């Protein structure tokens, strides 16, 4: 398998072969925003300013969406059919994430930093945020800003910035978690007739330990989870709630970069994995989270868990002990500097060219388009009239079972081939291939791609069975070498 498929999205028709030096340059480049105006148009270097939203804009959009939806639902002058029409229009017009979905595709197909994109999607998948309560509005910020910048820093910083991001705090219900002995908790106890609900919600705490950092191999207890939840209490609020927001504005508490409400935070000492986190007498307890996350980030179980996961993603589904320990020691030596860790993963990947490596349907789809100079995605000006996917590509992502904006579980998309092998999945591969050939205007032929990527004799033989260019196209794109298995 060509290295450009393993760590990138393949080579564009006129792109130079991927060397380690070029891969490293891509990895460390700052993001260039690339897109197209229309499906037939040539690439542009920048997305229009009005489509690159700040986190504040995104949260505002989510709030607007929710309050408009409530207004329509509650309006007693409308019959149910009128309500349906209005709701449908609202959904079509509040389409901020549709641009995110397009941007993901454009950048993969046309961008000049595919290696960087691949590492970003690895982390985006590691910190999965499914769609719920407005998170589809925020998750693009998690990808382009938090992870996009985060992969140039340490894992501890990345983990901290992801954990306190509105998308994560909302998705794993931390926005509801209020300490029982916090100011609000005490108030609730003193006024039982007012029926104020307070209590911890351990959803984010549990996944922070199990999925995002140390994993179950660290053998933490329910008490560790509960104390982690206590440290996390007070972080976040219902970001898309208009009433909550108005109250917070009055209190001057709307800083989205540090969304912490100290009167929701459980006071006192908390012990997690044997270490005591105690806020000082005059402290709100806000800094305990950073302290905990720094400890989790350098825990040997975390390092092991993530080194293995990186190997599984870029080197081999069942990585050798040697590969894992190589990444582990780079992690230890660099104190979790992701630039060093990623460089080591890349160096190892360049040496593992002969090992098969299954590729996700989404990676595969983007790489077909990139390699053939084809495009089936709308340009940002034609989002409304997208012939295939009703805006942004969400339908395509959904069809191949890999929509990052869907409702889904926090463990992310599987890295294992067996989870992507079924008659329906294979049906989708052949359909997507067919769609790209018929409507994506491939710029070069199968023979040219085979030559450019130096594909194996077996693949050439397989492709030669096709009687037409269309058949050849499906045989090539669905070949073991192209799909990675």
């Amino acid at each position, binding site marked *: 398998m060509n290295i450009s498929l393993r760590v990138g999205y393949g080579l564009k028709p006129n792109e130079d072969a991927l060397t380690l030096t070029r891969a490293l340059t891509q990895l460390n480049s700052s993001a260039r925003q690339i897109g197209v105006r229309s499906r037939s148009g040539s690439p542009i270097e920048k997305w229009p300013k009005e489509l690159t939203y700040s986190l504040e804009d995104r949260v505002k959009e989510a709030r607007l969406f929710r309050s408009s939806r409530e207004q329509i639902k509650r309006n007693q002058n409308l019959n149910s059919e009128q309500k349906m029409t209005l709701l449908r229009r609202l959904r079509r017009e509040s389409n901020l994430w549709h641009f995110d979905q397009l941007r993901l595709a454009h950048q993969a197909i046309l961008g000049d930093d595919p290696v960087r994109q691949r590492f970003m999607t690895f982390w985006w998948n590691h910190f999965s945020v499914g769609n719920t309560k407005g998170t589809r509005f925020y998750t693009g910020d998690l990808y382009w800003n938090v992870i996009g910048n985060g992969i140039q820093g340490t894992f501890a910083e990345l983990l901290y910035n992801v954990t306190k991001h509105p998308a994560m705090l909302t998705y794993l219900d931390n926005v509801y*978690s209020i300490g029982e002995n916090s100011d609000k908790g005490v108030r609730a106890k003193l006024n039982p007739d007012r029926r104020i609900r307070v209590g911890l919600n351990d959803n984010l705490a*549990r996944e922070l330990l199990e999925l995002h950092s140390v994993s179950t191999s660290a053998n933490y207890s*329910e008490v560790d989870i509960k104390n982690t939840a206590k440290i996390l209490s007070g972080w976040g609020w219902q970001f898309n709630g208009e009433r909550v927001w108005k109250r917070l504005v009055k209190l001057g508490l709307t800083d989205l970069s540090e969304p912490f409400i100290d009167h929701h935070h459980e006071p006192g000492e908390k012990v997690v994995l044997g270490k005591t986190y105690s806020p000082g007498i005059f402290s709100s307890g806000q800094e305990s989270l950073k302290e905990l996350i720094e400890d989790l980030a350098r825990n040997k179980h975390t390092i092991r868990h993530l080194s293995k996961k990186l190997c599984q993603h870029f080197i081999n589904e069942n990585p050798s002990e040697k590969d894992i320990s190589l990444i582990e020691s780079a992690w230890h030596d660099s104190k979790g500097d992701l630039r060093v860790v990623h460089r080591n993963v890349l160096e190892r990947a360049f040496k593992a060219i002969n090992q098969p490596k299954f590729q996700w349907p989404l990676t595969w789809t983007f790489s077909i388009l990139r390699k053939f100079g084809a495009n089936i995605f709308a340009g940002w000006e034609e989002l409304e009239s997208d012939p295939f996917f009703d805006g942004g590509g969400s339908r395509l992502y959904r*069809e191949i079972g890999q929509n990052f904006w869907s409702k889904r579980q926090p463990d992310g998309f599987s890295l294992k081939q067996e989870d992507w092998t079924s008659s329906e999945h294979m049906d989708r591969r052949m359909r997507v291939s067919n769609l790209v050939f018929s409507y994506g205007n491939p710029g070069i032929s199968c023979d040219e791609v085979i030559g450019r990527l130096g594909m194996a004799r077996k693949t050439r033989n397989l492709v030669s069975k096709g009687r037409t260019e269309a058949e050849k196209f499906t045989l090539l794109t669905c*070949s073991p070498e192209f799909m990675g298995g």
Partner: protein
Amino acid sequence: MVVNRRHFLASSLGYLTLLGWPRAGFTDVKSGRLVVILLEGGMDGLAAVPPIGDMALFDQRRELVPKNLLEVDRHFALNPALKNFNMLLKSSFGSIVHATNMPYKRRSHFEGQNIMESGISTPFAVKTGWLGRALDLAGFSGESLSLNLPLLLRGNKGNDTYYPAKIKKTDGPDPMIARYLANARSGMVSETFESLYFKENINNRRARRDPISLAKHAAVALRKVGGPRAAVIKVKRFDTHANQGADSGVFFSRMRLVDNIFETLRVKLEEDWETTIVVTLTEFGRTVAVNGSLGTDHGYGSAGLLAGGDGFKEKVVTDWPGLQKIDLHDGRDLMATVDYRSVLSSCLEKAFGLPHDFIIEKVFFDPKISRLTDRIFLRS
């Protein structure tokens, strides 16, 4: 009707009718079918089947107990969403097993889901599922109504998936090309491409894939002579950490979906309903007490719903552990007093005619699993 190449090839070889025929095994062709409804996220058994006879229920989670309960007996009631299932219970074609779970206490979704599908009490220990292994032994095939093939069904050849595509302007795979792609590989991927050679081409504009439509399709497939003998349907989003609801809300709407799946299967399976067992499966139950956001967190014991076949002995099968703090697992979760693998092995015994000892040894790899068949089913 346009006969495409696939239909022609399939019918001329007569392969479709041969595909699901039993291989050498224990069972005869007349035996039944099994449908598993996967409830993903950890289904709250205390909300599905509230133990109203246990006063601690109201102390711990008053907000989550529905008002319009459907009474089952003095001790138990059904969530109002389970209207059709209540009819099944009343006619003794439905049953509940309560205070039960797979042998797993660590409260992780992903370990729990792996265990409920693999049937092995160590997470990630095997690459096949209990249903797949049982089908393999019985010589039948199974079908999952999903895009991917769940672990639950793996371990058996000839299994299929059904989840019709909705990509505009594309045709289904060309069978010859699929075969070339199969020949270029080996193992599971090869077999899967090969299966496209025979797969019926679905008109993707019309096909629907909401759980009820999928249940209808499952019923039709299960009724086919030589068709699959097991089907798997997944209902997601039972992970109700916040705003779980009672008489309405997330849990209610999820449960109503499950209720409608039972009803759809009952109606569409026609006379084959009598030889079909339908059973729910979830990774764990949820905490007894309501949490700070009107939801529940990960717990242990839950409830299983069973229907179909030729009748059940009791409405509720349980060794009720109680909801007093001292009775709870870790002081917070409903204890599981029945190993759900016993329930599943009874269902396999009933549906596929495999002997109990054989099932626990070859399917669950645990000779200590007790036999509950006589306690659950009217005729065993």
